């Protein structure tokens, strides 16, 4: 026994220092390195934008202050709507649709997980629905809904404004994704929770409502927020069925003045809407991660 352990102890002290080139980037040197690489990246971007001839025409076309300003306020004389005014349309569409999506998605998810005999035929229907609307590109859905529903002459349903059809298309598509998110959330609740709740004598409904759903919803808030951000951007596609929302207003400006700064302004407005949400979502994810890693005792 002693000979084995003796052999494990080396004659000379083992080499414990990291190779020199790695040491170069530790500690304060590391900070310098990150500053240097950031500065280099910024320098490259600035060089492309300002020092090349292509950069100049790029800035003229996309970052032209004169046209950025016209984009904001519009020019009625030239029938160019304000990009800022256009985004009001996008905003009410996504606010309304998001509420509908959250509700409808939950219903679909419920139908897919429930075991109530009454709802069983609807389970198949719900699965088919989710497959279809997750499978067809949204641009096709909005065409089919926006031009198809009016053709069907279904009374009030065929007499709405294109913005309403846009909302219907968005709701149909996004509910399919959101129902999957809910379903994953419902499945992520440990089975023991359901056992405990049912063992107390809570009905299936009460178990879902008081125990499973509250836990599932907390888990799925980040992916739901991500879907919401996606929805906000997809409202731009409502322009395909005739609605002059912000991106279409930007295109009209571009067509009239041959300058792309209108598109830039529209993009900036979208960012103003979505960045707070993306930051908030990341914050929630980080907070949840901290809780999970620190929590269990």
């Amino acid at each position, binding site marked *: 026994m002693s000979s084995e352990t003796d052999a494990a102890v080396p004659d000379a002290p083992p080499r414990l220092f990291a190779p020199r080139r790695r040491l170069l980037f530790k500690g304060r040197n590391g900070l310098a390195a990150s500053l240097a690489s950031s500065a280099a990246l910024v320098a490259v971007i600035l060089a492309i934008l300002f020092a090349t001839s292509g950069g100049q025409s790029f800035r003229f076309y996309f970052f032209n202050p004169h046209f950025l300003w016209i984009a904001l306020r519009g020019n009625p004389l030239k029938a160019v709507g304000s990009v800022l005014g256009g985004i009001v349309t996008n905003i009410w569409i996504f606010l309304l649709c998001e509420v509908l999506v959250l509700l409808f998605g939950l219903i679909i998810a419920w139908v897919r997980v429930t075991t109530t005999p009454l709802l069983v035929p609807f389970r198949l229907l719900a699965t088919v629905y989710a497959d279809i609307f997750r499978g067809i590109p949204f641009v096709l859905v909005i065409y089919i809904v926006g031009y198809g529903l009016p053709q069907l002459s279904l009374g009030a349903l065929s007499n709405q404004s294109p913005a309403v059809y846009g909302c219907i298309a968005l709701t149909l598509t996004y509910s399919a994704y959101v129902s999957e998110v809910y379903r994953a959330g419902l499945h992520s609740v*440990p089975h*023991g*929770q359901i*056992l*405990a*709740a*049912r*063992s*107390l*004598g*809570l*009905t299936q409904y*009460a178990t879902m409502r*008081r*125990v499973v759903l*509250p*836990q599932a919803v*907390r888990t799925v808030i980040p992916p739901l927020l991500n879907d919401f951000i996606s929805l906000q951007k997809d409202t731009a596609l409502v322009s395909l069925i005739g609605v002059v929302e912000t991106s279409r207003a930007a295109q009209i400006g571009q067509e009239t003045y041959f300058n792309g700064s209108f598109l830039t302004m529209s993009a900036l407005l979208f960012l103003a809407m979505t960045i707070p949400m993306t930051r908030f979502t990341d914050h929630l994810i980080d907070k949840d991660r901290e809780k999970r890693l620190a*929590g*269990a*005792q």
Partner: protein
Amino acid sequence: MNDEVLKMSSVVKRFAQHEVLRDVSLTLHRHEVVCLIGASGSGKSTLLRCANLLETIDGGDIELFGQSLLDPRVDPDLVRRHMGTVFQSFNLFPHLSVLENIALGPVRALKRPADEVREEAMTLLARIGLQDRASEFPDRLSGGQQQRVAIVRSLAMRPSLLLLDEVTSALDPTLVGEVLDLLTDLAKSGTTMLIATHEMNFARDVSHQVAFLDNGVLIEKGPPDQVFERPRHDATRVFLGRVR
């Protein structure tokens, strides 16, 4: 009215082709504590889950206060309100505070008024010395504290009997004692309990009857003295030899 609270007669349970419970008969009387012992996989947990209808049995019968639970008119939710169940992994609701965990059943299932339930819940918490933790969330409590809250949660429903499934097996050894103490207390105050456990000393001290399960078969049942000191079957002897 007779003394039998829970009567399981010739219960058979199959998972796929595998018979997990074979012809198990067990009766639990009022104020009686019965401990189920046996190796893992012997069917103890399954038996408990069949008792409160979380699993459906494939043969035999289960009666609660003389009424067959297999009657199609029976509502499992109502049945379960008479039986308190405590699990190995506690299964407290993480999104509710300790107090809310205890109050959920009585308020939502029994439809009792909330303030009344809360008061009672606080009393129950005081009984286990955790009244100061009432508004905290379960993840802030130790394992032993959580399990005691779980026990109290099922007591809040004022059940006729308690089903306890290896409630100390997931606990740190130092925390096992506080839970066993609570169970001993409950036994002394006459709570009817069916307890699946590995804690042989506890079983010996507390139970009126001990039942030994081996591979889904109830090998023997009797007073603790008899089963532990003078087991009648070889299988029992072998098992006890391994756990001592």
